[in-house]
């Protein structure tokens, strides 16, 4: 399946259009035109919870920690992606793949010792797969993520080995990343996305495993991004971490890596308990590795224990990150997808999610 | 039943399907080691008498006891088993199976009584030696002469130590010299084995080998003269 990183790569210029041209007996194909992400745009809600179908790519990314009645900690992930491929816009077929919806759900259970995961994908249409505009309303077969009139996000994802039925209640205001939601992802100004987060979502609901439904509570994080051009050409991988701090603060940090492992771009933010917002620039974030875990499946070495140093007005602050357990590698090669690490992590005084992509060899796209 | 006679016939009556009476109220007792020759004209029922004794045919009335067991009260299967265990046969036409070896032919009665193959063949070889064919157990019938065939038949008739030996014209197919030797062998072997024997024959010479000579008439068995 698609990771965030892979989706970003989709925004690279495609060579598909000549094919369309030839298929139409010499008539010129009509490619989609994608709007650019620009600074200064004002996000408005609930409209911006909904889909932005003109943009090339968009996601609704929920990660979080759950606690079962027996006290066990679980990590979970429910993500919906929307992509607008470069296909001929003239095709009147209802099946024309003008919008693709895909979704991903994963459960990190230390008891299982590995990541349980499943995915869905479909071209939008027929009410079976839709990302509606106006408010968050995503459906993909039997999976869904919707924001109800009370402002609660409800999601259902029924996977092969587990099912998630969760209600996510915002407890804090929306966190606009970057400059009022304009978040740069590379050296060029157009390498950017509209980006906001909802940290400290209060989670209630149920996790079903092996036919047994268990009520859970917890805390989650929603990331929302949409864009048409994102990554720099040198980028081969991407590290991202989002931490809900126990004091109510929220830390976001990411770096885009090149082939040598050097950061091409970094970014993120800290909103402290008092609501003070600090944006991190390209030199304000540093990821260092404390411990590598080598996957027995792919032989990829992931820096699962890290220290993230961020520049705050009061100086550098380090967050030491440890995984809930090591093997949270997501290996979806069997269904044609990529391999990456996406897992629940702890820090002193906080918990969150870490994403590590581009470690298991170069991904061909 | 050590005390029972090998053969005891009493009040035996047999008629042909057409109604002609072969014999009536026939009686005969044969002691162990005794050879009885039955003579008579053709068609008088000599072979039928042998068939009755062997349990291959049924009498109209009367009683046949083999080693004390009455045949008429028995089922065919039990009669067959009785025949197998208590009676030995020698035929005019030898009836040696062509595709079995001499030893196998001789061993047939033992094998029929479910003796183990090795034991049966060993006893057959010993028996062949007693009739002068020692060491030829592996030969096939095609390799031996008529006289030798009848020696094999005699060996087969005695190999399982039957109480009773039935012989139907044992020398009928043989030249006089060979017949003489076979008869000598016959009487010595029967006496050695302690079996009783009933021999049906036309031949005065053959009958002479017997202890008693009886003539079969429609009236029954009539003693001819002592041998």
């Amino acid at each position: 399946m698609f990771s965030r990183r892979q989706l970003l790569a989709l925004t690279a210029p495609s060579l598909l259009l000549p094919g369309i041209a030839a298929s139409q007996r010499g008539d010129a194909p009509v490619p989609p035109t994608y709007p650019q992400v620009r600074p200064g745009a004002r996000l408005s809600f609930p409209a911006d919870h909904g889909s932005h179908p003109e943009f090339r790519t968009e996601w609704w990314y929920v990660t979080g920690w759950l606690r079962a009645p027996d006290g066990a900690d679980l990590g979970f992930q429910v993500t919906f992606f929307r992509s607008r491929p470069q296909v001929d816009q003239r095709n009147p077929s209802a099946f024309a793949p003008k919008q693709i919806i895909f979704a991903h759900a994963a459960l990190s259970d230390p008891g299982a010792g590995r990541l349980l995961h499943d995915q869905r994908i479909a071209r939008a249409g027929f009410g079976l797969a839709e990302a509606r505009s106006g408010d968050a309303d995503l459906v993909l077969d039997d999976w869904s993520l919707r924001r109800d009139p009370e402002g609660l996000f409800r999601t259902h994802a029924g996977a092969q080995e587990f099912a998630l039925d969760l209600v996510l209640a915002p407890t804090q205001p929306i966190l606009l990343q970057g400059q009022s939601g304009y978040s740069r992802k590379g050296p060029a100004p157009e390498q950017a996305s509209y980006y906001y987060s909802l940290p400290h979502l209060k989670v209630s609901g149920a996790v079903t495993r092996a036919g047994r439904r268990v009520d859970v509570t917890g805390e989650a994080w929603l990331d929302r991004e949409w864009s048409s051009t994102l990554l720099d050409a040198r980028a081969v991988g991407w590290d991202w971490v989002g931490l809900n701090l126990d004091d109510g603060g929220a830390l976001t940090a990411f770096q885009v890596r090149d082939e040598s492992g050097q950061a091409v771009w970094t970014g993120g933010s800290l909103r402290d308990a008092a609501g003070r917002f600090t944006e991190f620039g390209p030199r304000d974030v540093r990821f260092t590795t404390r411990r590598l875990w080598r996957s027995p499946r792919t032989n990829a070495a992931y820096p699962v224990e890290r220290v993230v140093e961020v520049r705050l007005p009061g100086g550098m602050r380090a967050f030491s990150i440890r995984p809930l357990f090591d093997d949270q590698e997501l290996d979806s090669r069997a269904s044609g997808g990529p391999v990456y690490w996406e897992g629940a992590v702890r820090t002193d005084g906080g918990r969150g999610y870490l994403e590590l992509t581009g470690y298991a060899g170069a991904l061909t796209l | 039943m050590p005390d029972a006679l090998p053969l005891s016939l009493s009040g035996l009556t047999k008629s042909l399907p057409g109604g002609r009476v072969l014999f009536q109220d026939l009686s005969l007792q044969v002691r162990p080691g005794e050879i009885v020759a039955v003579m008579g004209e053709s068609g008088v029922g000599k072979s039928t008498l042998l068939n009755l004794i062997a349990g291959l045919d049924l009498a109209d009335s009367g009683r046949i006891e083999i080693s004390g067991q009455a045949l008429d009260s028995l089922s065919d299967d039990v009669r067959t088993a009785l025949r197998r265990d208590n009676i030995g046969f020698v035929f005019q036409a030898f009836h040696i199976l062509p595709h079995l070896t001499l030893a196998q032919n001789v061993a047939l009665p033992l094998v029929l009584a479910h003796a183990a193959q090795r034991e049966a063949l060993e006893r057959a070889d010993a028996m062949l030696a007693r009739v002068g064919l020692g060491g030829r157990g592996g030969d096939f019938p095609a390799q031996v002469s008529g006289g030798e065939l009848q020696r094999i038949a005699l060996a087969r008739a005695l190999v399982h130590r039957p109480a009773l030996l039935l012989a139907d014209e044992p020398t009928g197919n043989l030249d006089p010299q060979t017949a003489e030797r076979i008869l000598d062998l016959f009487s010595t072997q029967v006496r050695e084995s302690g079996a009783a024997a009933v021999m049906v024959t036309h031949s005065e010479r053959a009958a002479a080998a017997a202890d008693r000579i009886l003539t079969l008439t429609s009236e029954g068995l009539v003693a001819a003269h002592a041998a």
Partner: protein
Amino acid sequence: MPPDRALSPTLLRWMMLGEWRARPSRVVLAIMAIAIGVALGLAVHIVNRSALDEFARAVRTVSGESDLQIHAVSPAGFPEGLYPQVARAQGVAMASPVVELAARTDTGGQFTLLGVDVLRAAAVTPSLIGRRPGADTFDSSEAVFQADALFLSQDAFQALGRPVGARVTVTAAGRSAELQIAGTLPAAASGQALGVVDIATAQWLFGQIGQLQRLDVRLQEGADRARVENELGRLLPRAAELVTAETEARRSDNLSRAYRVNLEMLAMVALLTGGFLVYSAQSLSVARRRPQFALLRVLGLKPRGMLRQVLIEGAVLGVTGAGLGILLGVGLAALALNLFGGDLGGGYFAADRPRLVFTPVAAVVIASLGLIVALAGSLLPALEASRAQAAVALKAGAGDAGDPRRAPMPWISVALLGAGALAAFGPPVGGLPLLGYLSIALMLAGGVGAMPWLARVLIRPLRRLRNPAPPVALAVARLWGAPRQAAIALCGIVASTSLMVAMAVMVTSFRGSVDEWLVQILPSDVYMRIEDATGGGIPPEVQARIAALPQLEAVDFRQEAPLRLAPDRPAVRLIARELDPATIKEVLPLVARADIPVGAVAAWVSEPMADIYRLKAGQRLTLPIGSGGTTQVWVAGIWRDYSNQFGAVALDSDDYTRITGDRLRSQAAMDLASGVRPRAVAEAIRELLPPAVARQTDFAEPRNLRAVALQIFDRSFAVTYALEAIAIVVGLTGVAATFSAQTLARRKEFGMLRHVGVLRRQIVLMLATEGALLGLVGAVAGLALGVAMSQVLIHVVNPQSFHWTMETRLPWGLFTILTLALAVTSAGAAVLAGRGAVSSAAVQAVREDW
């Protein structure tokens, strides 16, 4: 030692090995007879299974292993709005929409073009996912949406002969588009010509916007299939039907089931013939060994033991033969699959060279049949041996134990023949003419059983010959006096001959009827047909322009469409053509006709349709066509049809247009003006048609059509002929074996004859006469029995399995050749066997005991 054991294993071994050492060739023959029977049965079964398996696999590939499938009734498809309804139905895990069209490439290659949604197909029908060269998994990037990417199955790819990356013009549904070969479909079954494009491309480029031909459905795990099918059934519009991979396979199964049953029955015939051979071998062996068995009885072997002895001999023959037969059968099947393909030339499966599917259960079953046949063949001789009067048998020689003056009684045979005749009137069982086959089996048993009686009846006149040559007199006396022995020699040959004659009469009748039908059904000079007229066919204005062509004297435009009358039956063909009741007899081979009410719409129903749907001329019939959904028509007549096995109904062109509003026509029958060449007409018409339609249009002359039809016919019966020939050879081998055995058994008799002054060549002549007489008797009996059985095949088996009838035609030439061949072979076999027996020292034979 358990005293009740009837048989000593040592004795069994000695007797068996001794006998077989003495007569190895006869044992080998009996074993081979069973082996050949088992081999044929197994081979035919394996081939059928492999073909079915291949077909099922092909169905699964086209349907892509989906649990069930919703299919459009006609190529026009159904509205795509059904897709989300089905996808949301209870119990459905996922639905994959498919556009399915018959397509041609610019080079004339043909394949099934499937427009699929890769994202759905990946989860429902993974075998329809294309692979680009170099990619080792399915491509998850945006390239999967490349609009003009065409993925070809191995077969289509090879047939096209263009590299990946090449651009091809594909024509389907009357439209052409240029596509690029992007890769292959590695998981598609071999033998499948498939091309896969994106579903949106297929809808757009080939005029299918809003329409689908198929939905592949994957069920949720543990879903109640029947419930889901029920639920889906309620959703479906008239244009769509529910098809599970199973029902599709079953339909294909039905398609060829009757054909396969026929073949398997033929193979069983060979097995049965083998059984008769075992019977004759065992009978002779028992007869010859009667004194031996008698001795064993005297020495104390019980009757039960005797029975077992002979039965176990038969069982050993059977087991050995069956084991050998399994090996032989697998080899034979492999060979046949390579030579003929999966349907043994039947033309039912498009897929060629299926993979061999060995079915252990079937192998065991057929081998057991072989064993049973061998045991049954041994049972009668075994009973005879156990019942024999030991004392009598010790004195008598070989030959019929009975009195030569007493004629054998044919009562049991008469009863069997009567039962056989009765069974022929039974209805089909499960759609198969099983009672018909039972009838044939009973007649066979009765016929063979009547042989002693028949031989005696046929020989009797010869006894009145005045002053026959001594050898002839001897031969006649023997055949008359020992008819059971003669019958034993004959049973194998009568069985195989009669079955071959039955098949030959049926095939000859069928071929003649088909030929005649072809002449009648194809009276025009040239026929035109648009392949897969999804686009609709020729519009009225083009029809008018074609009709106005000076090269044409007359033209009849026709339309054909599938019409589903019952949900569980294959569609019948609806044919619209000019049908004038006044001249109907000249255009349709009618077998029945009736008056219908004035003003009613006349429907002309084909014979299979009438049989399947139980229609009679003059009856009313409701067809699911017309604006109101259904239309009442009257069956005005029934016509013979061999081309649409599931039925066809013809309406007059005008009636059809009035009822359906469809003015398009996809076929035409044309009479040419004198001196016009068919090719010229084809050229002229092609120019009038839109280019894409012209590319899909074929022209044919009846001469060619007939030739092709008969060629297909002959090919489909080639294997039938081969099986028959094998049955005959088995039968003849039986005759030769029986003669040689009987002759050997009669050495003493020959020795005696030589002693009394019969010349050696007179004995040979006697044997030749006996052989020839027996051969003739066998031929006469086989012919009579065969013709009787052929009537069951023609009037019971064929109508019940294929729903068509035919008129009996007798292949006299074949009969003559067969009769002569039998007489000559039998005489030859008798002489060959006799020469050996006579040349061996006659004197010695007299002295021998047995």
